[in-house]
């Protein structure tokens, strides 16, 4: 492998792929970045921790096509510290040489034979379902849903996000059994028969990061054992990338039956107000104590922690229903309110013990929140 390229292109690609580098002692080669230069003047840079695979490509003058596995961290540090301008990279037996200006750096490379095959590179879509979706919409949907996934490793399925794919739409759902976030968004394409997969929240978090500032559309190719999200680049290949993820296998909870059709009590408040008051009052809800919401013509939010302090604040509201009291974990309430993008929030409540529903003015997002039982 031998190519010449711009330092910035190389650094950008290396930084992107490095996010998936793994320090697993069982497969030391995963601490490396896989670089492959092809005859058509492209250099692919990829890394995987087996759960998450990230690959990107940039344009280069390829003198000798080939592959090399370079030590990820060291290579990243070295390229970042090169001065800008043209850089040459050459892989020989067991070594990679970087040339920049009058500098020559040689680092030992890792055994290419040990590197796993990367199934995201198999772009044959005949065996899978392909959809495309607006990048900005997907990024927004991920930020709404991913945070509701569980961090508790003992129930793996809840550490994932359920994706229900059908023609024209995808529904994302996540729950940690205290709250549930569900978002539907439009897609182009989709399977005849609904296809459900559960993706690790962590990989979707990385996808959300990569989508920041992306315009245009994202293509998702769902195959038997993985999904690959890809973004097409410009003619210079800038910003072209693929992120792949394995599935979490198992039965995701049947979340639809948890969402009641409707409740008799409906509160409408300003979203910003609810968010700032929850944060302020929430400071006095320590030791896992909840914030208390008194729903009436106005909304009173209060908290009390013995030996710490107490606080309450009133928010003007529109309310239809019986006056009632319900209490929530302040963080989970704030998460729900900040996930909603509209100016006003609708909160539907059954009684103080049934889960409450938070919705925005658009009907595409639902946040279900378990109340905390007041003693």
């Amino acid at each position, binding site marked *: 492998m031998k190519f010449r390229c711009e330092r910035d292109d190389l650094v950008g690609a290396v930084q992107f792929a490095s996010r998936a580098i793994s*320090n697993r*002692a069982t497969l030391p080669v995963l601490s490396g970045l896989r670089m492959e230069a092809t005859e058509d003047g492209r250099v692919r840079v990829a890394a995987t921790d087996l759960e998450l695979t990230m690959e990107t490509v940039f344009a280069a003058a390829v003198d000798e096509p080939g592959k090399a596995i370079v030590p990820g961290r060291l290579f990243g540090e070295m390229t970042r510290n090169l001065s800008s301008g043209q850089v040459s990279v050459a892989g020989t037996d067991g070594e990679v040489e970087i040339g920049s200006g009058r500098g020559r750096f040689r680092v030992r490379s890792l055994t290419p034979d040990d590197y*796993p095959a990367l199934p995201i590179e198999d772009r044959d879509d005949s065996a899978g379902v392909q959809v495309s979706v607006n990048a900005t919409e997907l990024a927004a949907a991920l930020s709404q849903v991913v945070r509701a996934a569980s961090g508790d490793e003992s129930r793996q399925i809840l550490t994932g996000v359920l994706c229900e794919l059908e023609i024209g739409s995808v529904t994302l759902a996540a729950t940690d059994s205290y709250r549930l976030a569900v978002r539907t968004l439009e897609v182009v394409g989709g399977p005849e028969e609904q296809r459900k997969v559960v993706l690790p929240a962590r990989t979707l978090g990385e996808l959300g990061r990569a989508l920041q500032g992306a315009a245009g559309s994202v293509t998702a190719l769902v195959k038997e054992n993985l999904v690959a999200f890809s973004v097409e680049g410009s003619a210079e290949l800038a910003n072209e990338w693929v992120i792949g993820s394995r599935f979490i*296998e198992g039965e995701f909870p049947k979340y639809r039956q948890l969402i009641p059709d409707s409740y008799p009590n409906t509160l409408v408040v300003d979203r910003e107000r609810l968010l700032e008051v929850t944060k302020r009052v929430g400071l006095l809800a320590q030791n896992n104590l909840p914030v208390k919401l008194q729903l009436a013509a106005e909304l009173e939010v209060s908290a009390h922690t013995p030996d710490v302090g107490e606080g309450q604040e009133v928010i003007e509201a529109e309310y239809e229903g019986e006056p009632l009291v319900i209490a929530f974990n302040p963080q989970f309430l704030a998460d729900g309110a900040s996930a909603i993008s509209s100016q006003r929030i609708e909160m539907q409540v059954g009684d103080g013990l049934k889960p409450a529903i938070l919705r925005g003015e658009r009907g595409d997002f639902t946040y279900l929140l378990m109340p905390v039982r007041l003693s």
Partner: protein
Amino acid sequence: MSVWDPLRGNLSIESLARQMSADDLAHSWLLLGSSGSDKGAAAVAMAAAVNCEVAPMLGCGDCSTCLRILRHRHPDVHHVSPEGTFILVDQIRESVIAEATRSPFEATSKVFILEEADRMNPAAQNALLKTLEEPGPATMFILLSAREEELLETIRSRCRVIHLQRVPEEHIATVLQAEGIATDKALLAARVCEGDLHRARSLTGSGRAWERRSLWLSIPRRLTSPVDGLDLAAEIVNEAREAVRDREMHQKDEVVELAEALGEGRGTTSARNALAKRHKRELRRVEEAVLAEALDTMGSFYRDVLALRSGGESVTNLDVLEELGGWADSGVSDLGLLAAVERCVSARSALSKNANVPLTMETTMLELTERVPPDSRAGVRS
């Protein structure tokens, strides 16, 4: 060529290969056999056979998938082995359960090979059981054990049980000779290794294993008083510590290698800690292996004396036949010899359950002095 080639001659493994090639698969397998039965190699061959793309269910042994599986470098073939005395529930959760809930990375089937599965403590076995009861699609579990009785019945009943035979003595001798070991040494090693090819290789290899064996064989003769017993116990324990020190040197190289692969800095600490933890447990295992070697060899010495008295067909330690003959002619009682053999076996099992090392060795030596009293061996040539 096939992944099964190096295992030819072992009839039970050949039958296993036939089951696989006939697509007669189970979700969970339990391969039972002593350490010489090649069950580890058989499990790896099974993993390659189910995943080989060139020769599905056979395992070509030559494609990238087969080669990486044989080298233990495949992302979908997971090796779980005790890092200390036991396989604990945390290890099962991290290395098995979390992985088992993921779709395969690149292979047709994920394979989990649990070496020395009997070392799972009951909590770990119960955690595994839930996964065995509801295996995801494309998942195969292969449990390896030499001590079936330590496994919960509920685990055993979930598995297809395969009993593997030891590797025949002649086969081992042929293999060693083919590897360039002189005929005399190859024959003797094949005899004393108890069907364990790896043990035979280590005996004929460059390490201290052969010297250590001579040391172990000298112990019954040197055990002439309780004071000697305590000295010899210390000698054995020291020998084990020596092996631990050798291992430590090797581990230092590994630490350097890891540092080269990872570089310094953020995020590398957990990998370093994991390695340090593994190293610590590994040292405990090295120590236990040497002590087990000592007890096994001493046990085989006493058993040989009994064997000589009843005709001598199955004598193991042919190189000390003359000394064994002297013991057989002496006044040592059969019952005493039997008790000595038993004591060696029970001490080994106590050590595998984390017993205090110096204390176990001391009480064992004292008991051997008592069961095979030095004065009953009067006249034994040495």
